[in-house]
Structures are given as structure tokens and as C-alpha cells.
């Protein structure tokens, strides 16, 4: 019994030839579940139909049929009618008539052929589009900078229009809450640099210069760079995602229609918070890195803390410290502008939100490093 029903449900396509006329007798279940078998059956039949003059499809044996099965049979009839051959479809059960009629109407329009450009043209187009996009990126950055300045000016004119609650909240989020992770990472970086310094400098007896290296490197360059990169990853991405999802849910449009400038409500407090927080984080980060270096000097390099502090005192000056700290707010500005403008560029889809967040982090880290390089050139030329 069970075997019998299974046999009945397996799809079959019996082909009967009489002269040039072909009769097809599909039977069993012509449904999507048997798609693989059905496609093989109709493909084989299609090959044989090339020679025949007329086709007759007898559907009496079909137990079940759905869109897929009906479409495969329809394809066979179209193959014949396109060559002006006669096709007869008989034995369609009453309940399937509607479906067969519906399928007869679909896929009639021939899709417009899309002109494929050549390989070279394609590459050229790609380069052109990339260049255009780079120019657009710069324009977006400058636009945001301008909007930010004008928002800041209006705050100076009417100090009460500054969103103090929002600013405090953002400061708490990007400043206070970031302190533990920043301290931990910079501490480790300082310790690693000191350990490497001792390990390699010991070979030519230059142990004591490790302190100079750690001190100058951390205070001038690494402290601010590491902290900026971490803030770009931690807070920059959060800014982009927040503003992006607000954009997606039309919250930003809602703000604009109420006559409120989204830049002064959403963007300005975020960027100001970042500009305030990054120098503070840089200071704490540099101290943690020096502490890590000192600890390694004591435990690994056999240099007692008083000596370490003494040498550090000689090695670094306030100038070094200033060079590091001056850079921090500018880096914060770059991170904030990139993060916010990428957030506002999010389009409707979730994919766009993800893409813009990635772009924001990658771009702000890149710009932070470029900026650090420019500052290095600048400080070298003014002799700091």
C-alpha cells in the first residue's frame, strides 16, 4: 500500500512517438518537492522535441501540480509554439485549470538586453567612480565641518541653546565609561614597549635609554594615537550606528520638520563631548603607559622606581607632553566629524547601516594616522 502511493507520487513523463507527432503523458506529483527530477525529465524531453512536428500533452495522469511543474510543461509547449508547431494540452483537471491558465501568461516579456561594457571600459569606469566618490567624501567632510562651525557660532551667540544634558550624557559615555579599557590597553602597550626595549637594548648595554624611548614614544606619539584609535573604534562606531538608525527611522527628518537643526541637537553635543574627552583620556592613557613601562623596568629590567622616575624626568620635557596633548582635540574632531557624517549618510537598509559603520571606523582610523603624520612634520619644522 505504502509502496504503491510512493510510486504514484513519483513524477514520470511517458513519451509516445507516432511519426513526427509526440505525445507526452506526465504523471505523478509535479510539485516543487520533486524539482530536481522534474527538471531532468523535461530537459530530456526538450531535446527530443526538437525534431517533432506536433506535440500533445495529456495531463490526465497528473496527481498534483504546482507552479514549478506547470511552468516546466509550459516551457515545453513554448519551445514548440516558438517554431510554429502545433501543441495540444488535454486532460487538465478542473482544479488545475486556473493555475495552467495563469502560468500561460507569465514570463512573456523578453527582458531588455543589458549592454555589457568591455573589461577596460569597466575598469576605467570603476576608477572614475572611485575618484568621484573620494571627491564627494571630502565635500561631505567639509560640509559637516562648516555646519558644525555655524552651529557652534549660534551657540556662542545664544549660550542657552547648547544642549547641556545631551553633552553631559555623551561625555559620560565616551569619556568616563571609556576610562577602564583605555587604562588597561595603554598600560599593556607601555609594558610591552619597555620589555622589548630592555630585551634588545641590553645587548649593547644601552638599558638606561629604554626610559627615554618609552617616555618620548608614549608621551609624544603612542599615547594619543592608541587612545584615538580606540575611541574611533569604540565611540565613533557608536555615533555612526546611533545616527544611522535614527536616520533609518526618519527621526532626523522629524527633527528637521519641527524646525530644529539636527546638527546642533545631535551632532554638536557628540563632537564637543569627544573633543573634551579625548585629551583627558590621552592624559590618563599616557600615565598608564608610563606606569606599565616603569613596572616592567623594575620587575624585568632591574631598575628601581626612583631611578626610573629620575631618568624620566631628564628624558621628557613639557614640550613633549604638549606635542602629545595638542594633537588630541584635533583627532577627536576628525573622528567625530567622520562618524557623524557617515551616520547621516545611512540609507534605508540594514546593510547600509553596517557598511557606513565600517566605513566610519576605517576612515577615522586612517585619518587619525594621517593627521599624526602631518603633525609630526609640522612640529619638526617648528622645532618642537
Amino acid at each position, binding site marked *: 500500500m505504502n509502496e504503491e502511493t510512493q510510486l504514484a507520487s513519483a513524477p514520470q513523463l511517458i513519451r509516445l512517438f507516432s511519426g513526427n507527432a509526440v505525445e507526452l503523458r506526465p504523471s505523478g506529483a509535479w*510539485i*516543487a*518537492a520533486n*524539482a*530536481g527530477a522534474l*527538471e531532468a525529465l523535461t530537459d530530456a524531453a526538450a531535446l527530443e522535441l526538437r525534431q517533432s512536428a506536433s506535440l500533445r500533452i495529456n495531463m490526465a495522469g497528473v496527481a498534483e501540480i*504546482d*507552479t*514549478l511543474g506547470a*511552468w*516546466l510543461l509550459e*516551457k515545453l509547449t513554448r519551445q514548440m509554439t516558438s517554431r510554429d508547431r502545433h501543441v495540444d494540452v488535454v486532460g487538465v483537471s478542473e*482544479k488545475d485549470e*486556473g*493555475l495552467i*491558465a*495563469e*502560468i500561460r*501568461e*507569465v*514570463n512573456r*516579456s523578453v*527582458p*531588455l538586453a543589458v549592454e555589457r561594457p568591455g573589461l577596460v571600459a569597466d575598469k576605467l569606469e570603476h576608477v572614475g567612480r572611485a575618484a568621484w566618490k573620494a571627491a564627494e567624501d571630502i565635500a561631505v567632510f567639509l560640509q559637516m565641518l562648516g555646519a558644525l562651525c555655524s552651529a557652534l557660532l549660534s551657540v556662542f551667540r545664544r549660550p542657552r541653546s547648547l544642549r547641556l544634558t545631551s553633552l553631559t550624557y555623551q561625555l559620560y559615555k565616551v569619556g568616563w565609561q571609556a576610562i577602564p579599557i583605555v587604562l588597561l590597553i595603554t598600560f599593556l602597550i607601555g609594558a610591552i614597549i619597555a620589555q622589548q626595549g630592555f630585551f634588545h637594548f641590553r645587548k649593547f648595554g644601552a638599558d638606561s635609554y629604554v626610559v627615554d624611548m618609552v617616555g618620548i614614544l608614549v608621551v609624544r606619539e603612542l599615547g594619543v594615537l592608541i587612545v584615538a584609535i580606540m575611541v574611533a573604534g569604540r565611540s565613533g562606531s557608536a555615533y555612526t550606528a546611533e545616527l544611522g538608525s535614527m536616520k533609518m527611522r526618519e527621526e532626523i527628518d522629524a527633527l528637521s520638520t519641527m524646525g530644529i537643526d539636527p546638527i546642533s541637537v545631535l551632532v554638536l553635543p557628540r563632537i564637543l563631548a569627544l573633543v573634551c574627552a579625548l585629551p583627558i583620556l590621552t592624559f590618563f592613557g599616557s600615565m598608564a603607559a608610563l606606569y606599565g613601562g616603569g613596572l616592567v623596568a623594575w620587575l624585568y629590567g632591574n631598575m628601581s622606581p626612583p631611578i626610573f622616575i629620575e631618568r624620566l624626568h631628564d628624558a621628557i620635557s613639557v614640550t613633549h607632553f604638549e606635542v602629545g596633548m595638542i594633537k588630541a582635540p584635533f583627532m577627536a574632531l576628525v573622528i567625530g566629524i567622520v562618524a557623524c557624517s557617515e551616520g547621516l549618510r545611512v*540609507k*534605508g*537598509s*540594514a*546593510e*547600509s547601516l553596517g557598511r557606513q559603520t565600517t566605513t566610519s571606523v576605517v576612515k577615522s582610523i586612517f585619518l587619525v594616522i594621517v593627521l599624526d603624520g602631518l603633525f609630526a612634520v609640522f612640529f619638526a619644522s617648528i622645532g618642537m
Partner: protein
Amino acid sequence: MDKAAPRVAIRVTDLVVGFGRRVVIDHLSLDVVQGEILGLVGASGSGKSVLMRSIIGLLPPQGGTIEVMGTPIGSASDRRTRAIAGRWGILFQRGALFSSLTARQNVQFPLREALTISDRLLDEIANAKLEMVGLSAEDGDKFPAELSGGMTKRVALARALALDPAIVFLDEPTSGLDPISAGDFDALIKTLQKTLGLTVFMVTHDLASLNTVCDRIAALADGRIAALGTMHDVLRSEHPWVRAYFRGKRSLMLQPKGS
């Protein structure tokens, strides 16, 4: 075997669903007959979506049983529930199209996962489905973000119908559409139901589509079915909420002329 007796597509028996202490569905029983369009109405927050989500296995019931095509439904991770998932299609309220895929790829997705067929056939079937729901093959290349509300619903319906399911669940299919598009969509559902022999379980607030499309109407109130039957039967129900819903100002068009 029992061709004479109407076959049951969905059988809900004594269902209890709740969140924490709050009971949303309270000992509810409901049968959906194969080949009918059942419209489910209820006040906002009365548990219509909860009922639908428990039938499709997204919410675990606290008590009672649900059978779809004779298979009991557990949680969505249950193997048996997943196996039956190939036999139903679901149109979510906001379409729930995958935003990283084009409309055509969205329709192809269930086909690609369930079947092993050539890419050419996949394209042809997807185009056929798009045309059946009233879109053109060119619309298939658009991404969900580029589609209008009505088109999104149509693509979502095409995706729900991709595997020629026996049952289609529609969650507020006409909400957010203008009356003309809503009317078109109603007609589309009716046509597809006839040609494909679907069973349709439709959650809706649209009085017009309840009136024109649904074979039977179930009114959900206080976690139970307050009224069940054709529009004619439901209009005569004495349940206070059902009266307010079907005899309120907005439902004057349902009233028989002259009464």
C-alpha cells in the same frame, strides 16, 4: 478517504499563551478548513499576532496543542516544525524582505534552500512568481530599500508563495496601502487562493477586505474567539466588542441596506 468532510488545515485546541503572569491567549480553540480564507480580527493588543506567531512556532505555548496539516507544532527550533515550514508561507507585516538581496533573490531564497535546480529555472520561477503577484521582471532587480510599500508587500507575498505552500499566513496584508492598492491586493489574494488552492490565515483590520475576501471571520476578544463564521453570522453576534467593531461608525458599509 474523507473527501466529503472538510479537511482541517490548522487545528488549535485549548491554546494558552502568555508572557510572565499576563495571559494573552486564554484556552482558545480554532479550526481553519483547507482552502478557505479566514480573517482574524481583534483589538490592538488583543493577541492576534501572538496567536499567529504561536501557530507558526515563533512563540512557545504554555498549554494546548497546535496542529498544522496534521503535524503538531513545537518551538521554531523543533525539527518537525522546521520540516513543516516548507509547507507554509508567511507575509510579515512590514514585509521582512532581506535587505541585502534583490527582490528576485528574495523570492529565490526559499527555492534555493529547499530545492536543487538550475539557476536558469530559479530565475524563471522567480520571474513567474513576481508576475503572478503583479510585478514585472524588471522590478526583480530592485533592492527592498528601492521598493514602495505596496511593492514590498507584493514581493513579500511572492516570497511567501515561492514554494507553492499549502497555507499562507498574512499579517495585516493591506495595512499602510491606499484603498486602491489594498483593493488590488485583496483581489490578488483571492485570485491566487483560487488558482493555487491555498488556505489563507489573515490577520487584518481592514473591514473592506474582511467583507470581500474572507470566507469566514474569527473575532478575537479577551483571549478567546468571541465570534466565528461568515460576515453575516459575525454581524449578528451579541458580544459587546464584536458589536462595537462591526457596527461602529466606520463599518456602516457592512450593514444591510435599509436596516
